[in-house]
């Protein structure tokens, strides 16, 4: 055990050297230099430990996507599809509507059932059609279709959020799906979550519809119309409008939106339609000159201008009571497109840059002091051997730093606590070994055999005791979120690096010392 084979010596030295090389960027480079080297694709190690939001400052949001809402919309579309399929096939039916999660329809003639199935299957895939009683029939999306739709909705929501955030010029935002219907948004360096929340959470569903000028909002509303309130950004006008439920052109047909000014220098949003949108808009305005149409965003009327002449160029302007900023934001939202379903925020954590910087400083002071305390104590307690254990402790910290940098694990405030705890516990392995050596010396063994036996006998204890802590740390990693994951990561990595440095690095030092000095007795 004492005389290490040459390959082991080389391996230990290589690991330590790699640790130094990969830990170095944290001390030698500024964050900007490191980013620059990453951009240039530099082969020289440049990765630094990435700091968690609680240390850097930033916003963490957990958003829940209302899948039920999106599915409800889907089912309404499915009902329309079934209706037109039956109509086209000339199959008589009555009572078509949604019952629970399915479209339910009663056929006039039970013999039409198989024709009806064929008609529906021709235009709609991913549905399951079942007979209900004699003449009834139920059409529902299959499980697989629902799962696929869920994935579609979620990736679309993430895509829209990403476009919107990118459009604000924010770099480094991380947007990930979390579980079935949740999205985690992390934006470092941002300390005002309000605008971020508004930008990514607004559904931004835009539609152009006609105003029903025949009834007042307080009167008898026909089933084809509905009452919608005016938006906060609307210009002075009525508080509510009666608008047709039928959509003339939807926001899906927008190809561009920019903010600008009208002839009176008031902020407006200019938009452009795609070909189909332009044609529909042109046709509709041509036939309805003199009438009012409403521009509706998220079920609120922004403005309801009069159609003075047909608008055929596919371009238009939304004027409301905008400021430059709200016009900019609206243009941004329209450019990025609508969210497929509404979102609500389930969790929000924002750390200001001041607190983050304070936490880093406090963590650094605590780590350095903890290290100094432990080193002084170890040297006092074990003399030369304590000094060797202290060197191993430094190596341990360097390796831990290197591992965090290379793995790009996120260092959080509890993570720093994990490092400090590692400093305290890392010497345990050495204490176990040294105590064993002391015992062997007391039992009358010579230096070499005592050291040999000490390392050998302490090994299983070290493994047992570290593995139990590692089990707890891994479970923390699995169940913990954010900062706690950070704690689990540094604790686990720290346990592994400390086992290496306390066993291998000190052994190399002790073995070298024994060979060079050939002491007759151990001062331990």
């Amino acid at each position, binding site marked *: 055990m004492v005389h290490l084979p040459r390959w082991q010596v080389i391996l230990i030295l290589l690991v330590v050297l790699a640790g130094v090389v990969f830990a170095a960027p944290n001390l030698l480079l500024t964050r900007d230099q490191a980013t620059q080297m990453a951009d240039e694709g530099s082969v020289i190690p440049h990765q630094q430990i990435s700091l968690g939001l609680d240390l850097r400052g930033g916003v963490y949001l957990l958003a829940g996507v209302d899948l039920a809402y999106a599915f409800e919309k889907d089912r309404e579309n499915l009902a329309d599809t079934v209706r037109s399929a039956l109509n086209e096939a000339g199959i008589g039916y009555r009572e078509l509507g949604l019952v629970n999660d399915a479209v339910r329809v009663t056929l006039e003639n039970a013999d039409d059932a198989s024709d009806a199935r064929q008609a529906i299957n021709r235009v709609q895939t991913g549905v399951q059609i079942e007979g209900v009683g004699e003449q009834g029939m139920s059409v529902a999306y299959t499980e697989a279709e629902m799962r696929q739709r869920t994935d579609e909705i979620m990736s679309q929501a993430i895509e829209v959020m990403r476009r919107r955030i990118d459009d604000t010029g924010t770099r480094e935002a991380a947007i990930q799906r979390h579980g079935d219907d949740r999205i985690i948004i992390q934006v470092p360096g941002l300390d005002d979550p309000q605008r971020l*929340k508004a930008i990514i959470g607004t559904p931004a569903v835009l539609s152009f519809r006609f105003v029903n000028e025949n009834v007042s909002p307080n009167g008898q509303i026909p089933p084809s119309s509905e009452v919608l309130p005016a938006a906060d950004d609307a210009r002075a006008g009525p508080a509510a409008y009666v608008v047709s439920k039928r959509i003339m052109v939807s926001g899906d047909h927008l190809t561009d939106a920019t903010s600008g000014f009208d002839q009176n220098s008031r902020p407006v949003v200019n938009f452009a339609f795609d070909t189909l949108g332009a044609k529909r808009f042109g046709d509709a305005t041509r036939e309805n000159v003199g009438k009012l149409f409403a521009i509706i965003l998220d079920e609120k009327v922004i403005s309801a201008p009069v159609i003075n002449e047909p608008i055929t160029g596919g371009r238009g302007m939304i004027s409301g009571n905008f400021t430059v900023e709200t016009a900019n934001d609206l243009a941004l939202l329209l450019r990025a497109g609508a969210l497929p379903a509404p979102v609500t*925020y389930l969790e929000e954590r*924002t750390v200001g840059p001041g607190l983050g910087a304070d936490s880093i400083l406090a963590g650094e002071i605590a780590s350095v002091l*903890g290290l100094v305390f432990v080193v002084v104590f170890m040297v006092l307690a074990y003399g030369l051997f304590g000094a060797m254990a202290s060197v191993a402790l430094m190596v341990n910290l360097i390796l831990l730093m290197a591992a965090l940098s290379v793995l790009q694990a996120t260092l959080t405030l*509890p993570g720093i606590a994990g490092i400090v705890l590692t400093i305290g516990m890392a010497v345990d392995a050495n204490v176990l070994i040294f105590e064993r050596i002391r015992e062997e010396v007391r039992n009358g063994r010579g230096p070499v055999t005592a050291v040999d036996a000490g390392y050998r006998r302490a090994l299983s204890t070290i493994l047992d005791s570290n593995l139990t802590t590692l089990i707890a740390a891994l479970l*923390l990693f699995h169940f913990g979120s954010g900062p706690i994951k950070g704690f689990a990561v540094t604790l686990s990595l720290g346990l592994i690096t400390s086992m290496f440095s306390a066993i291998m690095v000190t052994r190399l030092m002790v073995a070298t010392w024994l060979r060079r000095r050939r002491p007759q007795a151990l001062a331990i």
Partner: protein
Amino acid sequence: MALIRRLPVEPNLNFMRRRALFLLVSLAIVVASAGLFLTKGLNLGVDFRGGILIEVRTPQPADLGQLRDRLNSLGIGDVTLQQFGEPTDVLINISRPEGDESEQIHVIQQVMEALGPDVESRRQEYVGPKIGDELKEAGFLATMLAMAAIGIYIWFRFEWQFGVAALIALLHDVIATIGFYSLTQIEFNLATLAAVLTIAGYSINDTVVIFDRVRETLRRYKKLPLVGLLNRAINTTLSRTILTSFTTLLALGALFFFGGEVIRGFTAGLIWGVVIGTYSSFGLAVPLLSYIGLRRGGEDDAEPVAASAAKASS
């Protein structure tokens, strides 16, 4: 010069003579902790309770009464304020904001507007009721699984008597730590839960070291009475126990005093856990072994114990 040599070389303290007293103390700690938990409960943080937490810094030392009046006039639910470290730093806790999730989150904005532009927001946390419940469940599950996994590991590596004793000691430490958080009413949040799990790891670490020695001593001294043998195992590992606990406490002490206000509650729990975890190893786990009893290999029947011990140290 090495200080360690001034310590008694072969301590021979009779721990086992007082084992009944130790057990009584442990029992008292568990009963008191359970009682505290049931009567006083835990001061659940925003992570588990749901709600809003805002840390602000005021330009002058904060006038809590005035701030409280300003926030109470908003009618946004249960507002509590407390000093947080510096005299200018205030922690605002809103336990049950009015409305559903989409409305609750606006309360943060309302609070910041009411406090005015001079007040700097250092940290804002909002946890919706659903997430709070989920975090609670996940935390409970993690604690239970961690203990079960550690128990299974010990079971594999040692014989069942050790596993039972280690698990009881572990449970004792976890309950005592919960009791500590209940007594001090330090906020119990995700970080403190992590502290509890870390204590579970540390405590078992300490127990395993002594148990390893018990097993080895068993193998070596087949004729020694069990109680004397256990006592010997505690004594031979005593200097290691003291040294490791001490270095860990040194590091944690640095963290407690200099690591900042945010993780002080977390560190306090760890410090308590190291103390109780160290105590339970020799004060509870080993005495329990003497009551449960160990299978002793006579000279003829030494195979099972020796075999498993040899496997462990290979």
